[in-house]
């Protein structure tokens, strides 16, 4: 990152999207204005804006299949199908002096996106997305998705499976460069092997070919697993939301409530039976004498043997100490040194008196064992299967009832709920039983077990290295790669510790009422209370508390790199309470040194925008944009009251007026 230190977005224009055709200017009069709040109503294009800005910094064509591209492009297409093209243009400044413009041309009929770039002032337009090389290397989709984020990212930071925290730290601290070096070393080794391959050595050539196939299979399956994990997170969130809707409707509608209540009661009853069966079975296991006659006989014999041998009969350690120190034995005879040594040696033949405290309860438990206590034991285990089946039937009935009420919307939601639950189950089965399946030599060639593929690759690598006489080079490269891996692990650990310290320093201020601290950020954020009780995932912590910690995590991390890159947040404080909003606004203004653009709803203003404005002494852009329609007549009137030029754009209004920003709201006052 030789000379590029700061990138600041200066504006953007939309034409032909689900957003009105408007131009947005991000003013920065003295080069010191870093904060912008861009206010829109729900459904008017906040998320569209976030995604358009994301796609402006990496070429989306290089990162998606044609099918995925088509799907993505369709999400931007306006309802008016006569519009076949969309143009989005974003402007930014590098180091506060070099102007850049990136233009995205969406072709809805061919499902293509073409990029053009204008570098500097007055320079011509070049085809493609042409960013300075150093910047291009740094800005990847993963990087952009973390710096231009919504609360979904915040939630994924608490999920161990996605390992989002580690990925984020590695990306933003440039630790992924180590992986790049490692990959280059591997490429060098492969090139060396190819050079050493004799043209007639068909066996080696076959092995190299097999290796390439396995490698591509490995990449394909890893990508599949990655998308399954994303899908899993999405489904989990959707299921929780639908569940809330279903519960709300069933509480409001008497008929549904009764039907659902009966089905719920039955399901509860069957689940209770199954739970009891589990408890009974485990209670049997905790009483091994009832599980197996051989075990019972063994314990009884053990206890009898101890009793027969008069064990325990204890003598304290002090008894032996006193005895060897005395001049004469208990019988009155004088003791020689040899006699004393012998006594000391043999003291282990007597149990130490405190061992009694352990042995006596054991003996007593064995003696007290009542063989009638678990006489129904076979039944308990047979019941497991029976109760499992009954619970499943009750679950099916419960689902049936939920999908056949007289409320169409309720039925639909219930059906979707069941479908999504099944989808989630299938994903979990694939991830746990196919993808993560342990290595097996009998797996077929097309296996999706990552462990089997990795194992086969390692074996093939060894064979190729020997055949190509590349063992020496490979050993050196392997050592170097291991070293790089260690450096990566060590650095990640060090950086993580510093981040945790920095976040926890801020917690008291950001969460004054119920401080929650970060315990760990290994793979995911784990929280703990002041008294040290761990809180994994969202267990116990509110969504707002989790979001506040996620903010602190990202702010701390983004302040690290040499490059100051914008932080763009969709719905920045939607899940936060008053205190959370206020304190996040204070944290942002105090701690974040790059450009911040918040895409917020009118309902998010309270306790957030006013605090930011105050903390930043009004050095902030407060922009409002909305579309012109019958529903927005009252907004247009209000805008005119604040001298906003409502005629500037045909189908939308953009205001830079701070007073209007603070008065703007979607709902009409009666």
């Amino acid at each position: 990152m030789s000379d590029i230190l700061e990138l600041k977005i200066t504006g953007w224009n939309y034409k032909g999207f689900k957003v009105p055709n408007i131009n947005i200017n991000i003013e920065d009069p003295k080069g010191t204005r870093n904060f912008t709040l861009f206010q829109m109503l729900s459904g008017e294009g906040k998320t569209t804006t976030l995604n358009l800005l994301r796609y402006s910094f990496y070429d989306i064509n290089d990162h998606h299949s044609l099918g995925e591209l088509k799907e993505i492009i369709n999400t931007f297409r306006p309802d008016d199908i006569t519009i076949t093209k969309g143009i989005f243009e974003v402007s930014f400044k590098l180091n506060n002096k070099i102007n850049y413009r990136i233009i995205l041309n969406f072709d809805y009929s061919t499902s293509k996106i073409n990029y053009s770039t204008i570098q500097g002032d007055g320079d011509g337009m070049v085809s493609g997305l042409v960013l300075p090389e150093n910047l291009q290397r740094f800005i990847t989709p993963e990087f952009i998705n973390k710096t231009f984020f919504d609360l979904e990212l915040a939630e994924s930071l608490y999920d161990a499976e996605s390992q989002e925290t580690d990925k984020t730290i590695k990306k933003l601290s440039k630790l992924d460069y180590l992986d790049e070096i490692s990959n280059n070393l591997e490429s060098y080794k492969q090139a060396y092997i190819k050079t050493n391959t004799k043209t007639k050595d068909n066996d080696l050539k076959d092995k190299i070919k097999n290796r390439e196939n396995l490698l591509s299979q490995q990449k394909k399956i890893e990508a599949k697993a990655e998308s399954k994990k994303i899908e899993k997170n999405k489904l989990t969130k959707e299921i929780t939301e639908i569940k809330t809707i279903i519960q709300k409707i069933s509480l409001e509608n008497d008929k549904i409530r009764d039907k659902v209540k009966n089905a719920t009661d039955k399901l509860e009853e069957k689940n209770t039976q199954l739970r009891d069966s589990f408890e009974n079975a485990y209670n049997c296991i905790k009483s091994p004498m009832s599980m197996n006659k051989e075990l019972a006989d063994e314990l009884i014999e053990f206890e009898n043997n101890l009793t027969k041998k008069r064990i325990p009969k204890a003598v304290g350690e002090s008894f032996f100490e006193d005895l060897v120190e005395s001049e004469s034995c208990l019988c009155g005879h004088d003791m020689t040194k040899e006699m004393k040594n012998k006594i000391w040696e043999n003291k282990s033949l007597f149990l130490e008196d405190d061992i009694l405290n352990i042995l006596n309860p054991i003996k007593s438990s064995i003696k007290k064992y009542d063989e009638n206590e678990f006489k129904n034991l076979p039944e308990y285990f047979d019941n497991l299967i029976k109760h499992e089946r009954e619970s499943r039937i009750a679950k099916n009935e419960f689902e049936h009832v939920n999908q056949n009420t007289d409320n169409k919307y309720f039925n639909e939601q219930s059906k979707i709920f069941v479908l999504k639950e099944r989808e989630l189950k299938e994903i979990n089965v694939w991830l746990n039983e196919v993808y993560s399946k342990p290595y097996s030599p009998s797996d077929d060639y097309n296996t999706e077990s990552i462990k089997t593929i990795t194992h086969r690759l390692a074996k093939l690598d060894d064979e190729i290295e020997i055949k190509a006489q590349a063992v020496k080079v490979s050993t050196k490269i392997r050592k170097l790669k291991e070293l790089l891996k260690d450096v990566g692990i060590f650095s990640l650990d060090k950086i993580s510790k510093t981040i945790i310290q920095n976040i926890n320093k801020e917690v008291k201020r950001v969460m004054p009422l119920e401080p929650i601290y970060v315990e760990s950020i290994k793979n995911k954020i784990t929280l703990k209370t002041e008294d040290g009780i761990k809180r994994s995932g969202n267990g116990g912590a509110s969504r707002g508390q989790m979001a506040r910690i996620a903010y602190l995590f990202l702010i701390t991390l983004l302040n690290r790199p040499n490059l100051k890159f914008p932080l763009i947040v969709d719905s920045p404080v939607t899940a936060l309470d008053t205190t959370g909003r206020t304190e996040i606004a204070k944290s942002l203004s105090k701690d974040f040194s790059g450009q911040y653009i918040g895409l917020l709803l009118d309902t998010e203003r309270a306790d957030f925008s006013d605090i930011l404005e105050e903390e930043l002494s009004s050095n902030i852009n407060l922009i409002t944009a909305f579309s012109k329609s019958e529903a927005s007549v009252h907004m247009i009137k209000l805008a005119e009251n604040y001298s906003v030029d409502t005629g500037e754009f045909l189908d939308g209004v953009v205001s830079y007026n701070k007073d209007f920003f603070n008065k703007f709201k979607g709902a009409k006052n009666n």
Partner: protein
Amino acid sequence: MSTRFQFITKEKDNDNFISMSVFWNSISKKNGLDEQKKLSPFTEQLDLFYICLLIGLKNNLKIDTHVFEKSDVNDAWTKNLKTSGAKDYILGLFLSKITNEFKDDQSKIKKTINEVLDNDSETNLSDFGMEKINSYCFAGYIKILEELKNNTPSTIVKFLNVVNKLLRN
């Protein structure tokens, strides 16, 4: 020497080994979408340790613990295992196994018991005793994995049935 009950985290040179923590995740009580896991009777990691230990002792299986990477689980018996009497039975079985060969030799029995028990420890086991207990537990865990064809159990019912089979036969 180990002073605590332990879980196997990894078998050396075997990346495919299912750690006891992963196994524990598949049977422990969790509030999520999995209906059976919500009803699971297993709430503390020592529950899995106890079951593995029981299977190891029942089948008289021991294993060299040094071939594994390990993590500490507990340094005391859980209340549940204490009040149910399970702790006494399992310690009784353990003592029976390790003293079995000296059935008629009172002094050797006493010596062995002195070596493995320690009333000052929350577990009632000396370091030496704990090492031995972990060895039986790990062998029991390997036995369970074998029975499940090196997979985690798909349901709690499946797990309990496997345990039942290994203890009853």
